[in-house]
């Protein structure tokens, strides 16, 4: 009896993943198969879901918004995240390492709405001051906030990857008289390449899926950004901002669920790839 319950709980994760896909898809399916021009949906940058005369659902600008913020966040977070992972795993003593790991854990625990609030109240005036722009809620703001949010995951997974490199590699290199830096550069980075890549991918997944922080920090205009000072709107922020106002089961409402399916698919592929890479490392 109890075994049955345990088995049921064991497969619950599978049920929930399918359940999520099923229910989100179910709400959007009606419009996906009846009325939505899929080609226009994916290639048009015109998002006017509430226009009276000519309703247009094009998510290209939203995808561009998500992509621009994510790319900028990764440009900042990857070097710093990997650098910090290297420092924590190779360059510091035990005490300092424990302290830093705890700090990173706390950094990871800050809720996204608080990050958004920081973007709104701290970053916004700083960006306006430094770059002399009329509004500081833009790609740069969102990118910095997202970078700070995804750095902890890159550090912790990256550190695991470096730790997984066998000590015999280190010993062999040190016996040849290399310095720590040479050891890191010539031995550890090549050996932990896949694990570090997985860390970056998980960071990307986190950045793509982040909602409240980008909703509050990137400004609120649907356009394809041409510079980091442009305001954008991401896929996640669009759902969060418009779902409350869209009448239930209207085309607009269903399109938001279709965007949800799109997001689910993107993060699913990213996570799957990261997982396959990590397992590949372990299998070797």
């Amino acid at each position: 009896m109890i075994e049955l319950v345990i088995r049921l709980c064991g497969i619950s994760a599978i049920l929930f993943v399918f359940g999520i896909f099923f229910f989100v898809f179910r709400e959007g399916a009606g419009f996906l198969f009846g009325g939505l021009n899929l080609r226009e949906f994916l290639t048009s940058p015109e998002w006017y879901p509430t226009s009276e005369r000519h309703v247009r659902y094009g998510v290209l600008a939203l995808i561009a918004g998500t992509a621009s913020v994510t790319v900028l966040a990764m440009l900042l977070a990857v070097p710093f995240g990997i650098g910090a992972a290297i420092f924590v795993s190779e360059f510091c003593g035990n005490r300092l390492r424990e302290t830093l790991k705890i700090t990173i854990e706390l950094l990871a625990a800050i809720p996204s709405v608080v990050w958004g609030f920081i973007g709104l109240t701290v970053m916004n005036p700083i960006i306006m001051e430094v770059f002399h722009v009329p509004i500081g809620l833009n790609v740069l703001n969102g990118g910095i906030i997202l970078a700070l949010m995804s750095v902890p995951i890159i550090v912790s997974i990256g550190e695991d990857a470096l730790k997984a490199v066998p000590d015999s590699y280190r010993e062999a290199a040190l016996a040849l008289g290399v310095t720590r830096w040479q050891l890191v550069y010539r031995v550890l980075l090549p050996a932990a390449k896949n694990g570090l890549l997985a860390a970056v991918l998980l960071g990307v997944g986190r950045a793509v899926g982040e909602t409240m922080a980008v909703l509050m920090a990137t400004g609120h205009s649907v356009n394809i950004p041409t510079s980091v000072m442009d305001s954008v709107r991401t896929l996640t922020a669009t759902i969060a901002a418009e779902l409350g106002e869209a009448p239930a089961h209207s085309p607009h409402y269903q399109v938001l669920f279709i965007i949800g399916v799109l997001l689910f698919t993107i993060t699913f592929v990213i996570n799957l790839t990261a997982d396959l890479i990590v397992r590949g490392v372990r299998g070797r």
Partner: protein
Amino acid sequence: MTSPHTAPQPSFFQKTAFTRRKERSELAARIVFLLMTLLMVLPLVLILGYLLCKAWPILSIDFLFTNPRNGMRAGGIWSPLLGTIYLVVISLLIATPIGVLAAVFLNEYARENWFTRIVNLAVVNLAGVPSIVHALFGLGAFVLFARLGKSILAASLTLAIMTLPVIIASTKEALAAVPLAFREACWNVGASRWQTVRHIVLPNSVSGILTGVILQVSRAAGETAPVMFTGAVFYKAISEGHLFAYGLFDQCMALSMHLFTISTQVPDVPPALPYGTAVVLLGTVLAVNACSIIVRLRLRSRRKW
């Protein structure tokens, strides 16, 4: 006059230009990596300090125990605070048994095969699903399909599923830390698998499981998007000082959403108010996390095996 003792020293241990260059690059690397790490740690300290300074004038016991008043432009945060407590506790009650048993299955029952692999993959992917997609799922499945309506129950169920992977992962780690010899000793006296789990494995890993549960609390308390469309509302006044002011099928306010609302949706909010809310939210989450870290450190120092 030169004595023979000051004759040129043997040069075996003197640094050559090559060694010096190596040391310089070593030092440079160390400093660069240290700076990178500090640049990551620094924001945490600065942000905490800044928020605390800004919120200082408003923080008081009254702030915690009075409802928001005057269109959320005055008063305290009692109603959202209690709402968050409800959401966290109920989601915890749902997620903990399922999560712990799922981890027991993965660690104690499942064999290494393709099915277990898929379950693990599902856990990883569940952890990676964006919070807004969880919100859509909660809306589609609990609010509409299960006809729970926008309610505390629907929001808690959504949060529970969202935080399930956290509990599964940390419980699995705690269970794996119990040595195999304990289990073998138990099997040898004729105990079944479940008896072994119940009497040996779980008692020996309870603090590790607790760590995961505490982490789940902090995660659930901070989430905004999933509760926004499944149970949380902009404003709802409840009786002050009454712990059971919400019912299971009521809508509630939530601290995270309250912060979002007063910092973006309501005009003319006195600036200290959102800072105060942010500090209470952040303080709760960080305090809960600190608890989990302390439990873990004590556990590690006390472990006998």
